[in-house]
């Protein structure tokens, strides 16, 4: 039962066989045969974006909120180069996406043909793997392999570059089951001896901490469940990176809040003072470690990670465990239970008492105002009015992003989509559309800064066209706030190009796009305005005018150790009472 078909049809067939229901894309000469096939079927929905960067971020949002692979389709040359930022973003944050690019016909490659770019060359360093397919007979198998590679091991972006003549030519279609994928099979089970050694340390640890990251979420729902079970059973405190929020619930009793550069005082000091650090699917990023040589100086460290190159890359660990978080946690719990569920209860209660002291610092305190909307207040109100709803949050990059991480609580994984590793301004709006397409009935909010939001605002057209009722909650401080903050604190208050001039009128802009615009300037009106946004059945651009000079605290300036954290003046007042370990 061989099936002959054109390369273009193969692309669509392979996507269907991979369970793809939506593709984010933008047409052009080099992908017209594929678009022609998309036109002639109804199983796969095509979301026409406004810029290819948007397509890739939408695919990312789709992937992160569903745990499935996101797909983007773009043309050759400029289509492919526009996709580069999204690919790099997905690589840094380990997001499984497949990007299909058109290419000039094989016989023109190398001639500087119209819209020719060396796409595999350009994207090699920003993909987990990429392929230029020069033979239609290999096309379907390559696409199946691409999906496998995107998902397997540490997930990431892959790209398949398809010349136009390859799309036109006929060949036999290879079904997914027949595709050779076994050559890439990263190990998922952890080494039992090492897991046992970790259990031994857990049994006696006096000041343990679970330091969790995006790997827990990438490992799947089961991994988050196991993490919860582990934390509850051992009573170990849990902190998480920006990427891992939601794996352990923010309402959970062992939750310390996010750690890192703008992490919570208690989380960072617990990391600094612990005697056993269990890194679960995080990667000792520099926003987490601060000055490496002073990072958690007195702890034994274990690191569970599926990527061998993450282990011992930045921080030397005592117990490296190569494997998938879910598999390793399962074995860890099994062994710990079999050995009698021991922990050092007495020391743990002292540790919690110490953490309690740190919590009293109330590091997220800020000076309230009844005249201007404080960005923190705006997020607290957003949280109060939306928590408990079927809610997904995306963000742009800047102060608002850090405040969102601090003031919004996530009780489930896959509910929080933010550009962590690359810090891509312009991520949040398209990502929110990708999320909404995957979850049409959910409440999807992009917490944005005005500057970031402008970077991909054309995607409002996409939201309108495809009826994605995304809420754009813009904390408008008329500043590149995070840049301004660094200039204030570290560059002698010389505010070089860090304010937003000539901003559009966001309400009129919303009208121009045909959606709803809301502006709010007074804290007294805020609740009502947020309710209005939530009640509107369609996309909303919410221009929330906030205090322009607010700084985001706590803050560990880069290159400083955790215990040299800057607190806001308000939080500082409490600090004298705290004991440092």
């Amino acid at each position, binding site marked *: 039962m061989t099936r002959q078909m054109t390369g273009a049809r193969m692309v669509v067939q392979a996507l269907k066989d991979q369970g793809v229901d939506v593709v984010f894309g933008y047409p052009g000469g080099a992908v017209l045969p594929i678009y022609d096939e998309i036109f002639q079927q109804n199983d796969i929905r095509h979301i026409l974006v406004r810029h290819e960067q948007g397509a890739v971020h939408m695919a990312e949002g789709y992937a992160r909120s569903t745990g499935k692979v996101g797909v983007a389709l773009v043309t050759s040359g400029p289509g492919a180069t526009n996709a580069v930022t999204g690919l790099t973003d997905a690589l840094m944050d380990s997001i499984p996406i497949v990007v299909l690019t058109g290419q000039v016909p094989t016989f023109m490659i190398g001639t500087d043909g119209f819209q020719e770019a060396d796409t595999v060359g350009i994207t090699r360093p920003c993909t987990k793997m990429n*392929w230029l397919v020069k033979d239609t007979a290999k096309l379907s198998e390559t696409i199946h392999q691409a999906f496998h590679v995107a998902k397997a*091991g540490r997930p990431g972006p892959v790209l398949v570059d398809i010349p136009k003549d390859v799309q036109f030519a006929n060949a036999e279609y290879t079904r997914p089951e027949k595709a050779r994928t076994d*050559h890439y099979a*990263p*190990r998922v089970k952890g080494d039992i001896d090492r897991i046992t050694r970790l259990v031994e340390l857990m049994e006696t640890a006096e000041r343990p901490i679970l330091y969790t990251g995006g790997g827990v979420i990438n490992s799947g729902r089961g991994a988050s469940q196991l993490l919860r079970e582990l934390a509850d059973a051992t009573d170990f405190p849990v902190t998480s990176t920006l990427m891992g929020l939601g794996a352990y619930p923010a309402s959970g009793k062992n939750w310390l809040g996010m750690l890192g550069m703008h992490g919570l005082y208690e989380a960072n000091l617990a990391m600094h003072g612990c005697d056993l650090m269990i890194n679960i699917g995080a990667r000792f990023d520099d926003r987490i470690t601060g000055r490496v040589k002073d990072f958690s100086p007195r702890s034994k460290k274990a690191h569970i990670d599926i990527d061998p190159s993450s*282990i011992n890359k930045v921080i030397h660990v005592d117990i490296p465990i190569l494997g998938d978080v879910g598999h390793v946690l399962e074995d860890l719990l099994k062994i710990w239970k079999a050995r009698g569920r021991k922990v050092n209860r007495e020391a743990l209660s002292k540790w919690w008492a110490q953490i309690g002291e740190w919590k009293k610092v109330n590091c997220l305190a800020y000076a309230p105002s009844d005249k201007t909307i404080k960005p923190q207040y705006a997020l607290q109100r957003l949280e109060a009015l939306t928590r408990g709803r079927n809610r997904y949050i995306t963000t742009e990059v800047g102060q608002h992003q850090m405040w969102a991480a601090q003031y919004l609580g996530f009780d489930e994984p896959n509910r929080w989509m933010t550009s962590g590793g690359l810090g891509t301004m312009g991520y949040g709006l398209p990502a929110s559309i990708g999320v909404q397409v995957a979850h049409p009935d959910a409440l999807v909010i992009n917490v944005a800064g005005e500057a970031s939001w402008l970077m991909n605002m054309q995607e409002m057209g996409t939201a309108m066209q495809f009826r994605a009722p995304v809420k754009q909650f813009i904390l408008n401080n008329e500043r590149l706030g995070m840049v301004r903050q660094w200039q204030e604190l570290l560059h002698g208050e010389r505010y070089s190009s860090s304010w937003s001039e000539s901003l559009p009128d966001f309400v009129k802009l919303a009208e121009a796009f045909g959606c709803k615009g809301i502006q709010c300037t007074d804290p007294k009106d805020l609740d009502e305005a947020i309710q209005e946004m939530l009640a509107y059945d369609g996309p909303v651009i919410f221009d929330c005018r906030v205090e322009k000079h607010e700084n985001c605290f706590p803050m560990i300036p880069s290159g400083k150790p955790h215990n040299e954290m800057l607190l806001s003046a308000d939080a500082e007042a409490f600090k004298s009472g705290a004991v440092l370990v």
Partner: protein
Amino acid sequence: MSALNIKKGSTSHSAYDLRDSHSEVEESHTLAVIVENEPGVLARVIGLFSGRGYNIDSLTVAEVDHTGHRSRITIVTRGTPAVVDQIEAQLSRMVPVYEVHDLTAEGPCVQRELALIKVSGRGEPRIEALRLAEIFRASVVDSTLDSFVFEMTGTPAKIDAFAELMRPLGLKEIARTGVAAMSRGA
């Protein structure tokens, strides 16, 4: 060809044996990397080294298993133990990489390089060059009345030494293949 049957890199390699990874001393390591022989793989490997700031002192590549489409890349690199471990881990996680062997860490290995060395001159220097070539077991693969092309294989150090001796005797040109290496024993 038994090396080709060892299970794939990231699944079996040990990126973190317990030798001293804190040492700040740079060491030279020779890595053997078995990869899928497909376009772009060499670029990906080289890109890793340039992108992450690792050294390449020598790199050779050729297909060694024609039916399995596998190539063997031999890389001589330099770095502290932690950096060399990281290089091994970065290589082993690459999708088209099947195996990574740190030949220097795995035990004694043989290293060979081939060089072609052109020396020109007449009279006494020419005779001296020929005499030295004999001592170094370099063979003459081309000769004219006023030039020789010597071919020699050996360790990079031996080739360096020979080239150094040829310099005052009329060394014109040198072409080297880079190192191929293999562990000793079965």
